[in-house]
């Protein structure tokens, strides 16, 4: 059987008002970015529970990208400010328990920043490719099993 080459599979949680529109612009401007990302639209970066990130990793995704409006641009005034505090500690905790920091990326991408979106996804996927497939939550297979 021919061996298939491993490709990272990552998920992107993008806020409806900025980053999702930004990703849309990337597409309509015919800019290319890695197809490794699966985008999930959320109302606001404040909607993103750290649980989403952990469950995505637990379910075997290789990385999680979280993106929202720039500070001050939030459609709901303060969603991304609250999110920012939450993300800061989430990131520290994940690193502390031994999850590679490259697997979880946060970014601010505005609706007009199509090229930035492409750049962020490209760099993120490259980072994930470097750390390799996510085997964190896999059970080790012992000899004789």
């Amino acid at each position: 059987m021919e061996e298939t080459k491993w490709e990272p599979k990552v998920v992107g949680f993008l806020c409806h008002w900025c980053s999702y529109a930004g990703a849309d612009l990337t597409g309509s401007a015919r800019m290319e970015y890695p197809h490794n990302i699966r985008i999930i639209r959320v109302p606001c970066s404040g909607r993103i529970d750290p649980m989403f990130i952990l469950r995505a990793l637990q379910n075997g995704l290789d990385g999680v990208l979280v993106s929202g409006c720039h500070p001050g641009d939030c459609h709901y005034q303060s969603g991304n400010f609250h999110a920012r505090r939450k993300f800061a500690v989430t990131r520290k905790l994940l690193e502390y328990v031994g999850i590679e920091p490259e697997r979880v990326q946060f970014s601010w991408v505005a609706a007009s920043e199509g090229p930035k979106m492409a750049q962020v996804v490209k760099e993120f996927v490259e980072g994930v490719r470097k750390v390799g497939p996510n085997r964190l939550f896999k059970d080790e297979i012992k000899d004789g099993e």
Partner: protein
Amino acid sequence: MENKLKEEARKLLKEGKVDYIVGYGKGTVKFRTSPLITNKEEDIEGLVINPFIANNLSRYPAEIKGKLGIVVKGCDSRSLVSLIQDNKVKRDDIVILGVPCEGVVDIKKLVEQIGADIDQVKEIDKEGDNLIVKMDGSKKTVLFGDVIFDKCFGCEYPTPLEYDILLGSEVSPRVELEKSLKKIKEFEDINAPERWRYWKEQFSKCIRCYACRNVCPACFCERCFVDVNIPQWITTYGSWQDNLVFQLIRTLHVAGRCSDCGECERSCPVGITLRSLQRKMVEEVKGLFNYETGVDKDAPPVFTHYEATDPEEFIK
């Protein structure tokens, strides 16, 4: 201290200022204490204050209806203030009886130090910095600083910050932060895959009894995310993956509310080093947002609040 507590507690009940007194009583196991909750004057005689009062009683005000007179140590008082900040407890509904605390004895450490079973110990007296342990026909002296809980080493607020009645004179803080953070620093020095393996091993032991959640004063959600079944975030059987995710999310939920009282680790029946997670978060919250739990009862809880200048160098 004990006599003053009994006197004050009697007075509070008699004058009708409180409906219940929440304090420490003698436990069923030698030297250990257990919570004593009473509205009867005759039970007041059973209240104790000694170097073994480990429980954090600040969990009770949110659970018991009526006015409470509650006994708290320094760390517990900060849990209580944190609950006041979160509007879970009304300040006017509680009378805080503050115990200035020099540290709480970890019986596990004590047993290790004296090299004898706790049942053989007849009496323990505290004399200055020493504990005099009297056993059948012999006497041993151990250093108090060797047998207290790890959390007590770096305790910056041994005297309750918020109280109505202080039961003793103020205690100066221990400044052994290094000793308190030793385990975390050592842990951070090992590489990421090893760290992950460590937690994997730890949480393979977990039986998901939820003692850590049930004992934690900061865990006050009416419905915990692990009990939610639509969507079911965490499966009901105890795989290490789910156990770990459960604890990580719990850690994040109590971040900024945790006063490092160490009850999660103390209550864990399988001995998972939970405090190392919680303590790490205490440090991070302090470093990132310059916020300490339960120090100021009028301050907004750290995650309901933000500053325009919050750190964001990690965001692209």
